[in-house]
């Protein structure tokens, strides 16, 4: 027989660019997002929201709305059978406001009707009489105690200090600044949506929802509904992005309450405008920092004061505060520090989780400071950062020892080695200049700047939280099935999990079972944690299955199971000639194992902010090249060079996607993305006026992956989701400062900040 050449596709194992199973569907528009779900006999739900940032509710009259044909039921705070409040850390947010509304957009009532338009008309017929109150909008008023408490829990959500080392030490170089960070929105594209289907007996229900953490939702819903958790099933609907905004409850409880009351399936989905009011945002912050350095530019001490505006309810503000203040030093050695941090309550929209989680704010401040030290001692941005770069084993300002692989200097030098983009030629495409399609500039109007940003980011949860993930692997006839409750929000776990199973078990076909609450928690898809945590759980479950398979094969063929290993898709004897395909080896049997992955324990901080509060860290450097039109204040980010500490690349395509996406999000915060508030009111709740970067704003990204295997991580891989968006923002702002020679301490940078 003639030899035929067979082209084999590389197997989609770890290290290869396996494609997303849902990729083609998303591109073609056939992916089913939660907002596409439908059920027989379904009604629509909608929410009535407060138009005022702060007001006393005098009365709510739903009679006219109830009389509208097509309206099935209306619910208010009176209809919440269980706990009247919810919250991720502190249960201080009402399901529906009953006495006071504390932010513009706070839910007051919800309606179920036969059509979205009927819902809209019904909402307009609900009469709420408010006594409008002057809102608390300045966080300093909350700290000073000059404003009466706007909530029974008070106006300061959390206060924490960090006191370390010599409190009186200084150096010949002292630089300081007060940095202001605006309110960014996660702006996921797939809006909030859920479908609640009541059980026929009316005693339980099934909720399909776009969320980041099914089990946490379940806990909060169960308490508010006063139903045992086993009577509520949650299934993940198709999610179109999250970035932190789906960690808190939004429409979940409302949708379930309506379904139980109406006795029919209820579909709820927010519009873009409602979405701006329906989820938490990134905390606006004001950060004062003073760095003391020696004549060489080495940091001697840092003084800092952080104020995070948490808005009306707690959400994750306490954790965001801790993340912010414990990252005061950035990726640099620092032995002495005095840090004072506040997260406060105001009548602004609630703020909570967003990619970078408090570290984005801290990083803008510490990186701006590093450039000031560099100028003061006559060193370059690269030199000053290399002099101060921390290494594994260094103590942090919390006293915690840096135990993660910490290739800070390598991130900087490898970024520095990336070639700069070509200088602008004589002829340029005018669309590529600052101002873009507006054709506002010629080449001669443009000045180019270069800026740096380097960051440290904690991975996983902190402060003593037992953060774990669960997965089950079942092997049958050469096919592996994986079951987990890990929310796929776009990050790519549905691509990675089968890659892990193929690598560990030598199978090719992997079936993903529905993502729901019929298994233990996977924890949240946040904190750059799912590759590490759920990846660790899938890996652990697959390894347990493999061990049992080897025992089975060993018994059948009288080989010591310890001699068996997986080679490609075969089970082989390491020291003999035995070779048997995994498909044959597992024929007729079913092996199923469940594994829980816990990361190492962490501690709470003491009164002086000392303690091993974080699990692990990742690092990244960004260099921005930015063209600026100084006269008009317009900006075009030309190139972002980056080297990121990733541990190990598990899927190169997916990894570069995280880097490029994070950079676009960080660019948005640097130069355009801001929820504009005026006296507690949101002025721009739309994509017409809340601006996200377009293709003409996006830079070229040149990325280097620093692969230093992280021994603490189950797969050697660090989480890579958050770091890309953190230090790119200060790098871009530094490049703008470099181009125009003017100090800017507020983001996003507005045209008038540059040119007026």
């Amino acid at each position, binding site marked *: 027989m003639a030899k035929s050449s067979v082209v084999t596709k590389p197997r989609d194992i770890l290290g290869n660019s396996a494609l997303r199973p849902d990729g083609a569907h998303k591109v073609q528009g056939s992916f089913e997002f939660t907002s596409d779900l439908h059920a027989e006999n379904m009604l629509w739900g909608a929410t009535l929201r407060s138009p005022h940032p702060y007001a006393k509710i005098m009365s709510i009259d739903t009679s006219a709305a109830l009389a509208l044909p097509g309206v099935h039921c209306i619910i208010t705070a009176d209809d919440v059978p269980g706990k009247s409040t919810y919250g991720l850390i502190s249960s201080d947010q009402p399901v529906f406001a009953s006495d006071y509304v504390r932010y513009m957009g706070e839910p007051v009532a919800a309606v179920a009707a036969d059509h979205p338009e009927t819902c809209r008309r019904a909402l307009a017929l609900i009469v709420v009489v408010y006594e409008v109150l002057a809102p608390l909008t300045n966080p300093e008023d909350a700290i000073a105690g000059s404003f009466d408490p706007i909530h029974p829990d008070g106006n300061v959500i959390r206060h924490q200090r960090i006191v370390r080392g010599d409190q009186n030490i200084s150096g010949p170089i002292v630089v300081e600044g007060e940095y202001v960070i605006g309110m960014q929105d996660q702006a996921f594209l797939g809006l909030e949506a859920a479908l609640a289907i009541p059980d026929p007996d009316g005693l339980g229900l099934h909720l399909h929802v776009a969320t980041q953490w099914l089990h946490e939702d379940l806990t909060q819903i169960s308490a508010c509904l006063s139903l045992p958790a086993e009577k509520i099933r949650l299934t993940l609907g198709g999610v179109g992005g999250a970035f932190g905004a789906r960690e808190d409850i939004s429409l979940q409880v409302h949708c379930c309450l309506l379904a139980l009351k109406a006795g029919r399936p209820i579909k709820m989905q927010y*519009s873009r405008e409602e979405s701006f009011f329906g989820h938490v945002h990134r905390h606006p912050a004001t950060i004062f920092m003073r760095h003391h350095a020696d004549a060489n530019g080495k940091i001697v001490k840092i003084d800092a004061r952080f104020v995070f505006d948490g808005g009306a309810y707690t959400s994750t503000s306490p954790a965001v505060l801790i993340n912010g203040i414990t990252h005061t030093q950035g990726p640099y050695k620092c032995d002495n520090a005095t840090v004072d941090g506040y997260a406060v309550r105001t009548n602004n929209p609630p703020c909570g989780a967003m990619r970078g989680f408090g570290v984005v704010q801290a990083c803008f401040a510490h990186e701006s400071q590093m450039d000031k030290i560099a100028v003061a001692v006559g060193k370059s941005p690269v030199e000053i950062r290399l002099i101060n770069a921390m290494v594994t084993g260094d103590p942090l300002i919390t006293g915690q020892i840096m135990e993660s692989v910490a290739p800070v200097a390598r991130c900087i030098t490898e970024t520095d080695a990336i070639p700069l983009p070509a200088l602008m030629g004589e002829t340029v495409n005018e*669309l590529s200049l600052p101002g*873009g399609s507006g054709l506002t500039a*010629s080449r001669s109007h443009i000045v180019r700047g270069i800026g740096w940003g380097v960051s440290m980011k904690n991975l996983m949860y902190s402060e003593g939280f037992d953060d774990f993930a669960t997965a089950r692997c079942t092997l049958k006839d050469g096919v592996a099935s994986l079951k987990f409750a890990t929310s796929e929000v776009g990050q790519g776990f549905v691509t990675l999990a089968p890659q892990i199973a193929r690598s560990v078990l030598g199978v090719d076909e992997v079936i993903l079972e529905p993502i729901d609450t019929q298994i233990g928690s996977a924890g949240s898809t946040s904190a750059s944690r799912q590759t590490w945590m759920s990846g660790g759980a899938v890996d652990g479950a697959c390894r347990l299955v493999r061990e049992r398979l080897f025992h089975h094969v060993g018994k059948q063929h009288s080989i010591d199971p310890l001699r068996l290993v997986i080679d490609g898709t075969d089970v082989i004897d390491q020291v003999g000639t035995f070779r048997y395909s995994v498909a044959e080896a597992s024929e007729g049997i079913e092996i199923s194992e469940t594994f829980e992955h816990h990361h190492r324990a962490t501690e709470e901080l003491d009164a002086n902010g000392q303690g091993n509060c974080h699990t692990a860290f990742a690092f990244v450097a960004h260099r921005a090249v930015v063209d600026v039109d100084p006269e*008009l204040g317009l900006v*075009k980010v030309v190139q972002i060079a980056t080297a990121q500490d990733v541990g190990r690349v598990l899927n190169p395509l997916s990894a570069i996607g995280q880097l490029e996406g994070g950079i676009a999000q960080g660019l948005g915060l640097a130069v355009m993305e801001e929820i504009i508030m005026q006296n507690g009111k949101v002025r721009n709740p739309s994509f*017409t006026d809340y601006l996200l970067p377009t293709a*003409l704003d996006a830079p070229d990204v040149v990325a280097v992956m620093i692969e230093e295997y992280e021994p603490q991580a189950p797969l050697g891989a660090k989480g890579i989701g958050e770091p890309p968006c953190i230090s790119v923002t200060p790098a871009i702002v530094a490049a703008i400062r470099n181009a125009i020679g003017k100090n800017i301490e507020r983001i996003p940078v507005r045209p*008038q900040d540059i040119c007026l």
Partner: protein
Amino acid sequence: MTVIVAKELTTALTALREHADARLIQGGTDLMVEINFNHVKPTTMISLRDIDSLRTIRRDQPGMLSIGSGVPYSIIEEEPVLSDIPALSQAARTVGSPQIRAAGSLGGNLGTCSPAGDTLPVMFALDAMIHLNTLDSSRVVSIHDFMTGVKRSVRQHDEIITSIDFPIVKGWQGYSKVGVRNAMVISVASTCLVADHENATVRIALGSVGPTIIRCREAEAWLKANHDLSAGASISLDIAGEFGKRAAAESSPIDDHRSTAAYRRHAISVLASRLLRKAYQ
């Protein structure tokens, strides 16, 4: 809601007269947003997009290009408009996204009459003439008389904007628009400048810096009185700077969530000055 899809202009005009509450829809890029936000609740809509006569570009007389009110921006970006009225092509390119430009049209910009309407400054700088038809009459109105305020015009309920006449001017023309991102953005300030070399005049109109588009007559007159504006003339940086300041002085911008009055005025002075320099490079 009733939607009348007209194939002929007369069908649309008849329907318009019969339904006092009817709203016209061409690309729908403004109206559908208004409807989605529940700002308007029309009970009758008359679709103009299948009326071929509104979607043609004609050269009826020499020195004049007549563009149908329904010609989408994506066509205006291309020839023949690109060569004959380049400022209009440039303005069309700044409108929204490719999807929006495939739907939106000059008729929509005129029908909405927002001071941020991207193509309106071009019409003001070129003294465009607007053709309006009713079932039994027609009239031609100068753009200067057409727009009367923020989202207000002289168009009567039973009138349809059919076409816009643009003179083809020998000389240089350009359009610039400032927004806070590099594409797909609502104008913070915009400027159209036309250098008419034959008549040795410069005309300039401003968008988003007043209740209507602002034609800077005083700055134009100052420039003509003090400087040679024929082809081949040169404009110094000082003259351009002074011209920019004078143009900005004629604007009356406001502070809002998109920008500040001070920045808008500053941007106008920069844009006017740069466009003038480009016109005489």
